[in-house]
């Protein structure tokens, strides 16, 4: 109570000085007083109470009606005081939530982490940047002893926490059939049934699954409504869209997925992405796919990881650039 008493003295002096001098300096002090009071969680009606007491001490002969009007003001401030208290509680809760979400985000990072494989013949680059704290994109590498490299790239519709939870479900289903080296069409078919059974009607997942055979140098792939990737032909110096039909996961349980196969030549690249890459905007302007490919070509002398990093940096450098959706870009290149 002693500090409040001290403040009361302080307030009285300030008020007295201001009434006498009308000096700006006293007004500034009043502002400091209010800041200090907020730090001490002092409510608006308490300040008015201090004001009344100060007035009484400065003007002992204060007219009755001013005294009454002050009491009246005090009553009308009570709701503001309650609102202020509520604000305090909400702010504490918000801090609590914020730290919980950051714990969850870290946990997600650990759960969904994947190790970029090191295979002599293939150069792999991967980058995933969340638009918000939690990432709704997912990519995963599975490398087996027989020279097979499985790559999954997925995007959960919706963003934030629900999308992230959904992604964890996908990750665990994939782990459960990881032992059998499976065809992309089979993997997508099984995941489709899992998602269809477990996820809310308006949620869905797009996924591209590819299997690179590093002995035969073939790439087998299937897509569940995922943003098309690109294939770079080194000999022709040309990009080709990997356009694969297939319905998104979680819409229809009877759907089957068709898989395709491609022979990969030396120097060829496979470029996989999510719509965060093609939905980038600069102000009101959309960034076109051609621009992404142009940047990839520009940096194609770099290792695959260097290319994906430079592509992101290129867009990040644009003025008014905003990442509206999670951004994932993966590049595979046959070296030998």
């Amino acid at each position, binding site marked *: 109570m002693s500090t409040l008493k001290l403040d009361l003295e302080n307030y009285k002096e300030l008020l007295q000085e201001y009434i006498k001098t009308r000096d700006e300096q006293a007004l500034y002090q009043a502002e400091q007083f209010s800041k200090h009071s907020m730090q001490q969680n002092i409510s608006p009606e308490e300040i008015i109470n201090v004001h009344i007491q100060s007035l009484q001490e400065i003007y002992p002969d204060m007219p009755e009606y001013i005294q009454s009007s002050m009491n009246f003001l005090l009553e009308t401030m009570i709701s503001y005081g309650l609102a202020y208290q509520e604000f305090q509680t909400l702010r504490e809760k918000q801090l609590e939530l914020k730290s919980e979400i950051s714990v969850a985000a870290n946990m997600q990072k650990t759960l969904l982490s994947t190790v970029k494989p090191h295979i002599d013949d293939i150069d792999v680059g991967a980058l995933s940047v969340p638009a918000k704290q939690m990432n709704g994109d997912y990519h995963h590498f599975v490398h087996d002893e027989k020279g097979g490299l499985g790559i999954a790239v997925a995007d959960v519709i919706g963003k934030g926490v629900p999308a992230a939870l959904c992604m964890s479900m996908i990750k665990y289903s994939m782990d459960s059939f990881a032992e059998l080296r499976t065809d992309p069409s089979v993997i997508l078919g099984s995941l489709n049934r899992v998602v269809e059974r477990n996820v809310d009607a308006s*949620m869905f997942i*797009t996924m591209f699954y590819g299997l690179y055979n590093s002995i035969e140098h073939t790439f087998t792939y299937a897509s569940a409504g995922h943003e098309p990737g690109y294939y770079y032909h080194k000999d022709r110096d040309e990009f080709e869209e990997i356009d694969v039909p*297939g*319905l*998104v996961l979680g*819409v229809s349980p009877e759907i089957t997925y068709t898989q395709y196969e491609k022979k990969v030549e030396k120097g060829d690249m496979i470029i996989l992405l999510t719509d965060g890459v093609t*939905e980038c905007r600069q102000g009101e302007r959309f960034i076109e796919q051609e621009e992404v490919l142009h940047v990839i070509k520009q940096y194609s002398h770099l290792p695959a990881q260097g290319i994906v990093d430079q592509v992101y940096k290129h867009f990040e450098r644009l003025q008014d650039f905003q990442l509206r959706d999670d951004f994932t870009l993966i590049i595979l290149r046959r070296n030998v």
Partner: protein
Amino acid sequence: MNLTIDVTNIDGVTNVVLAGEVDAFTAPKLKETILPLTREEEVVQVDFSDVNYMDSTGLGVFISALKSTKEHNSSMRLVHMQDRVYRLFKITGLTEIMNIDSTVQGGM
């Protein structure tokens, strides 16, 4: 950018005219309008002429609407899509299972 939703009924067809952007902010409002219609009406037509942007959250709304038409024996038809929006339905394979007017309007 905002989304305006206009519902009219002409000759027994409920026409939902959209104008603006369908994204995470406007999708909930769209869902609240369309889902009840698929339960109450026989034919729901959605006009996309003035939709210049839609993201995957918007697709989610039409997927749940499609599921709802199957449960309630109603039908939904999507018409007058701009190229950019149509591309989204095409990539996700939804053009195969939804009734979408194939005469695509010009791009942006």
